[in-house]
């Protein structure tokens, strides 16, 4: 079964469900009229954010990879940005942009900004990594043949970015959907700043108790994601495969259900125009000292003024806060502990099921064929979109705690699973052959071969899973349903309450700071040492 067929099947199934709802009078047509408009606004937000993220990633990654001095602070900075729970900043961002531009445009920009921040960092890392991991021989070959300047950029530098950039774009889009839905859901609480979109449609219909409509909205979201997968990411991936430095001649399976040369051609031409523009800009900036200096100075000015503004807001709200420390502030540490425990519980479940599952899926070609498409489709649905539905079920039949942990699990597990699958697959064939030909089996095989080999991907997967988990937390601990508020004590709850329940900017600031510090400490104390160990000791050369 090819993934394409499977996706088409799901799309048809969802459409027929919608038609069935309509036929049996669960939904009225007028209520659906606005759905295309909602869907279009959602997609547009994603598109804008992605465009900016792409530009950012290429330039940031390129500078970090080529400028030794800049790298020293650019990488740690990116690292911190990546580990900060972006969703916590959404309320702050809304306030910031509304100050700049009044009205809905300000909120729109805040939403696009939020989605941008969820997309950009990993893409920038991807560009940086692919530029620094250009095989040395290839770079030296380019040097010795005198391939310099724009020719080099076009023939070596940009193509080197393609595989990781495509791969990270796919991740960014799926993370982006999560934040899109989240930002629409969060802003739905206030009438004046409401963003029309699929996320707000989901939450509105849930609150109104129109379950059928909510399901139709969910179907629409899933169909859009699947169509993008089918018509953009799949062809893009097979196009990107061409640019991998893989000389092993492993045959790549024909992934697609129908030949989409035109789409591939389209991508090639988009990429080529894009690279040509970059190349021209590059020559322009590097060729003329004046332009370079002017750009540098304006860049610094913009940076300084932005930082100054942020510092001003920080200091002013801080002083305001110091004069008037919110009563809840003392409960922040305890709230963080509660949230941490909730995340840990979800993480333990993730680890228990993903390690064996990843091994089984990666090893069995049948499983790869049937299970991976299903998993990928499941993973592409932003967990947060299911939350309204889950709340309906769990408020009636269970506790919110269970719903929250399930939501966290959904928000964490895919990172771990797909990283581990990639990890198992990247074990060199000869290492596998050693195990086979020397008869290394059973627990010995797991202890000495598979688990160590999975370790690097386990660490990367865990880091991203925890990042996803902290973001999910913001939504998982607090929900307003049919006019009454349901919550679990935790940092996400404090943050949401201070934003939407009884607005308190000081509390928002303190919560975000507390959460960020916790995450940074966890990264420094746990994940970074593990990461270093994984890559110094457990990585195949």
């Amino acid at each position: 079964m090819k993934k394409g067929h499977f996706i088409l099947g799901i799309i048809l199934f969802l459409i027929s469900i919608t038609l069935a709802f309509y036929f049996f009078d669960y939904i009225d047509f007028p209520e659906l009229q606005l759905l295309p408009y909602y869907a279009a606004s959602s997609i547009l937000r994603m598109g804008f954010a992605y465009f900016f993220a792409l530009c950012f990633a290429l330039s940031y990654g390129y500078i970090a990879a080529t400028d030794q001095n800049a790298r020293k602070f650019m990488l740690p900075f990116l690292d911190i940005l990546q580990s900060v729970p972006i969703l916590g900043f959404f309320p702050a961002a809304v306030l910031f942009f509304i100050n700049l531009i009044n009205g809905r445009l300000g909120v729109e920009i805040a939403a696009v900004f939020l989605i941008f921040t969820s997309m950009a960092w990993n893409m920038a890392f991807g560009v940086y990594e692919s530029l620094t991991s250009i095989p040395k021989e290839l770079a030296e070959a380019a040097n010795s043949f005198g391939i310099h300047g724009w020719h080099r950029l076009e023939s070596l530098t940009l193509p080197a970015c393609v595989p990781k950039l495509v791969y990270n774009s796919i991740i960014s889009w799926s993370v982006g959907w999560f934040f899109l839905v989240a930002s629409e859901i969060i802003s739905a609480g206030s009438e004046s700043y409401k963003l029309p979109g699929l996320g707000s449609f989901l939450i509105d219909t849930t609150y109104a108790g129109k379950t059928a409509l909510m399901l139709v909205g969910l179907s629409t979201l899933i169909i859009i994601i699947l169509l993008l997968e089918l018509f953009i990411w799949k062809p893009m991936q097979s196009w990107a495969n061409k640019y991998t430095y893989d000389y092993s001649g492993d045959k790549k399976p024909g992934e697609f259900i129908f030949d989409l040369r035109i789409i591939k051609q389209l991508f090639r031409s988009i990429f080529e125009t894009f690279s040509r523009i970059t190349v021209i800009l590059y020559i322009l900036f590097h060729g003329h000292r004046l332009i370079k200096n002017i750009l540098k100075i304006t860049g610094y000015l913009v940076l300084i003024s932005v930082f100054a503004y942020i510092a001003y807001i920080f200091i002013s709200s801080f002083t305001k806060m110091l004069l008037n420390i919110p009563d809840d502030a003392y409960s922040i540490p305890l709230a963080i502990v509660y949230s941490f425990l909730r995340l840990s519980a979800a993480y333990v479940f993730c680890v228990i099921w993903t390690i064996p599952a990843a091994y089984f899926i990666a090893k069995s070609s049948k499983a790869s064929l049937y299970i991976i498409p299903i998993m990928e489709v499941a993973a592409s649905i932003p967990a947060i979109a299911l939350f309204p539905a889950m709340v309906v079920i769990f408020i009636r039949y269970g506790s919110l705690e269970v719903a929250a942990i399930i939501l966290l699990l959904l928000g964490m597990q895919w990172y771990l699973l797909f990283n581990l699958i990639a990890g198992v697959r990247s074990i060199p064939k000869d290492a596998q052959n050693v195990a086979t030909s020397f008869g290394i089996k059973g627990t010995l095989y797991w202890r000495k071969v598979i688990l160590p080999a999975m370790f690097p991907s386990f660490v990367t997967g865990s880091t991203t899973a925890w990042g996803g988990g902290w973001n999910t937390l913001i939504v998982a601990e607090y929900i307003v349903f049919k006019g009454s508020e349901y919550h679990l004590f935790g940092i996400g709850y404090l943050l949401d309450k201070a934003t939407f329940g009884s607005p308190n900017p000081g509390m928002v600031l303190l919560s975000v700071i507390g959460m960020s510090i916790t995450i940074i400490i966890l990264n420094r104390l746990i994940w970074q040492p593990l990461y270093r160990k994984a890559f110094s000791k457990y990585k195949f050369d």
Partner: protein
Amino acid sequence: MLAEIKNVSKTFESEGNKILALDNINFSVEDNDFICIVGPSGCGKSTLLRIIVGLEKPTSGEVFFKGEEIAPDNPKVSMVFQNFALFPWLTVKENIELVLESTKKEKDAGEIACKYIKAVGLDGFEKVYPRELSGGMKQRVGFARALAVEPVLLCMDEPFSSLDALTSQNLKDELLILWADANMPPDAVIMVTHNVEEAVYLANRIIVLSPRPGKIVADLKIELERPRNRKDPEFYRWVDKVYSLIV
């Protein structure tokens, strides 16, 4: 007769096309054979070797080892890999102990490992990780690992091709000593190489494969005195002869 390769053919499927890689290969391996399989690149020599050790299944035909169909985990057949294939998280000694533990020689695993580390001239490096070793030393570990299970038949896939000339010459001589030593494994060796001179230097039998699909063009007995001298005109006659069969 130690091993028998019977009517082995292999076809690969690529984008719907069937490509014949090996076409009806037949030969047998005797005790004390040192067989080198040579041929132009892409003729399927490595595939043939992997079929002989059981890592790959032939499309048709069979491989017998001591009268039984070959199993990939047969401890009497072991393998040296071109790119060493050592586990980076295990030390030199642990890498060797790992394969011993799997063949249920757990008790003396440490002792046997040390014996073969010494045999390949790596004593003092037991606790070093592969990453810290040079290519030549890594391949010595590869040899020690393959020999530690005390195989009857040692299979090697271009084991010297990623080493420099001097290192590989030393290793070749040590390998010949081990092969000639009746008390030490292995009894027979099959080695894949694209280096004809190397093949003439080492082998007492050279099997020449044709370009794709790989067929046996010649099965030559090399009757040269050992130790062989590369400057001997007789040596060069053999090299030329093998070359003429490949081209």
